[in-house]
């Protein structure tokens, strides 16, 4: 697949985020069928993936999804504010979730910054178009919060490395073609200094992906095993032994700017379920509104910092904590408001509410647990002894 990069001198949208947003909203207001299909509540995760990919394909083909990504990697230029504006517009117009395109904002910025330009230039457009999706292989059965103890090995051979090991809780691996794997290229004693990051093709012989059925009834998670899977030198992301830096770059997005994207979909959830609210839930609803306002202000500042070329550093932990609190607050209210959520989740809408509610109880675990975020703040910001 080949995309012709347009003559870039005078692209009005690239220079002007407001004009871009306005044009996108005008298009969304026509309610394109592919958008309508993705905006409906669908209990089956597999179907949700299908409609999301179909939508991304159209967003890419009509150029909307290409803004905010570098031109030499298949984008149309601009910066994170274009992406922030795009997902906000989609949520405002009724899209319920980013689903597995969350990795566009968690993984892709790091691939762009630290990956091999030849490789990423090929793969990013396929990701943006919903053709080839991604997953993140950090956690292992024995390495959860203590990520630096990861054991999956990457052994140097002629022409690259060979990877062997086991990853778990790999979101969307079932649907993904690619996985960014954190593997040990040094010794276990070197801890975080002995890790490197590689792009692995999940369809390669030696890779096995086993879905894990989740407690909320969806099956996003998977266990992935690698048995002597070869990767070429272009598959290394960052430097050899620089895997920790890659992981931190990714987690900084997962904790900071990601709040911007996710809170917009929480707003959507709240808006959709509003009619079912009763006066008994008003305090919970008001409380959710306060938490959402906090995430919006804090993650908005993160997006702005990012657009200006900075990062939040350890302060991303604040956004992560606020985001989790708001997701739980919204769902506390959902539980109080949606009848039958706990006892008879039969129709698609109720089933999705139940999935969301249960998922909101685990958001304090992934991307670095709540305890790890609090530890970061205590140590790096409050500088406690």
């Amino acid at each position, binding site marked *: 697949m080949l995309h012709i990069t347009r003559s870039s001198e005078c692209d009005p949208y690239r220079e002007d985020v407001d004009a871009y947003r306005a044009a996108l909203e005008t298009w969304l207001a026509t309610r394109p069928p592919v958008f309508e299909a993705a905006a409906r509540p669908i209990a089956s995760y597999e179907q949700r993936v299908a409609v999301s990919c179909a939508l991304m394909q159209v967003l890419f083909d009509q150029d909307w999804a290409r803004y905010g990504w570098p031109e030499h990697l298949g984008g149309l230029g601009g910066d994170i504010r274009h992406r922030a504006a795009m997902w906000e517009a989609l949520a405002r117009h009724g899209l319920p979730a980013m689903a597995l395109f969350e990795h566009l904002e968690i993984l892709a910025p790091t691939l762009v910054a630290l990956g091999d330009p030849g490789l990423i230039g090929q793969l990013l457009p396929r990701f943006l178009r919903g053709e080839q999706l991604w997953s993140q292989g950090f956690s292992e059965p024995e390495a959860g919060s203590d990520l630096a103890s990861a054991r999956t090995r990457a052994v140097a051979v002629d022409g690259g490395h060979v990877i062997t090991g086991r990853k778990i809780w790999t979101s969307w691996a079932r649907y993904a073609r690619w996985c960014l794997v954190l593997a040990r290229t040094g010794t276990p004693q070197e801890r975080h200094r002995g890790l490197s990051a590689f792009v692995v093709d999940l369809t390669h012989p030696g890779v096995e992906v086993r879905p894990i059925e989740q407690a909320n009834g969806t099956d996003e998670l998977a266990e992935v095993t690698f048995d002597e899977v070869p990767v070429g030198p272009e598959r290394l992301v960052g430097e050899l032994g620089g895997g920790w830096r890659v992981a931190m770059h990714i987690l900084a997005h997962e904790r900071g700017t990601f709040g911007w994207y996710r809170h917009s979909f929480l*707003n959507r959830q709240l808006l959709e379920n509003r009619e079912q609210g009763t006066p008994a839930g008003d305090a919970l609803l008001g*409380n959710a509104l306060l938490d959402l306002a906090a995430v919006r202000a804090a993650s908005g500042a993160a997006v702005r910092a990012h*657009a200006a070329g900075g990062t939040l550093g350890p302060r991303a932990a604040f956004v992560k904590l606020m985001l989790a609190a708001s997701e739980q607050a919204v769902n506390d209210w959902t539980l109080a408001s949606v009848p039958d959520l706990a006892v008879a989740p039969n129709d698609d809408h109720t089933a999705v509410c139940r999935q969301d509610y249960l998922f909101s109880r685990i958001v304090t675990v992934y991307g670095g647990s709540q305890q790890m975020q*609090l530890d970061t703040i205590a140590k790096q910001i409050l500088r*406690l002894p």
Partner: protein
Amino acid sequence: MTRGGDVGDLQEQADQEFLDAACLALRAQADASPDGAGAGDAAVGGAVDDAPGTRSDPLRELGWFDLLPELGDRDARVAALTLFRAQGRELAGTRALGALLAQPFLAAAGLPPDAAVATISRTSARQGKRLMVVGDVADPAGAIGMAGTALLIDRPGHGAAVVPADEIELWPVAVSGRLELHEVIHGPADWVPTVDEEHAAVARARARFLGRLAAALEILGAAEGALALAVAYARTREQFGRPIGTFQAVRHLLAWAQTDCVALEKVTTAAAALDGVQAAPPRHDEVVKALAGRNGRRVCERALQVLGGIGFTSEHTHHHFHSRVLALDALLGTSAELTHGLGAWLREADDDTTASALWTAPRLPLLPSKS
């Protein structure tokens, strides 16, 4: 990128500088006051003892009143509002809240910004509607150079009036928190509105937005003050042979408190950058004030837990911060009633209103657009 890890831009730096300057000016005033304990304590006991002109007026020293006619300008507005955060941190007690609340009315009447201080109406469960005034207005001896301050009284439905000091009785209310509070007694018989209801209605909405934002910032400052005490204590207080700040349970209490402060800081600073109530999403002032009350109380509670018994003494400063948060939460709408009210409103509002409340006006915190 060289700025690595720092979100601060030039704008934020300038705002920070004003905050520091305001803290210094307020601290200087507290140090200069007779018992060195800050204006609040002195006033409840005996500000009347001050000789005329002996107390300097930090609001004038900071040029704060000059900012009030310029609230349409982003920098002036942010500077004017930042004073309140400093006031919370320093436990200072000026009449700034009432002066800010009065500003839209005074402007409508063509009066200068220091012509009057607005009263705040409050519904007492036992006594019904009461009028309160915050800060150093009771200054009969003219110690800070004001020979009695005129008060602005707003009566929704009947306009607002500037009432001269001699038509008013002030009763001190004893609250902790180094906060000067007075109940205002003024007979309704001689009511002559200075601003008629039509104009007062517009001024009222503006004033309420500004006042809630200011109170929220003062709560933020007080919460930050309480947290700073607890963090310092956790570093030095030892139990089991080590500083209590090495225990994860204590560390996490402080980290949560810091998170609540940061949340409130982000929301208040984003709201201060908005050009008043017209530019804000619907009922945003209520969101800001409710968040302030909720987070402010949580911060003080966590700080108290870390301080242990010593934090519960009248001698320790914690209770001043805590009481100030509670008092400010009780004015201009409590967190409990606002939160409940916002929920009820959101449940019944139409989709467009709800959407604009949720996707709030930093409809672009992302701006300014690159040029």
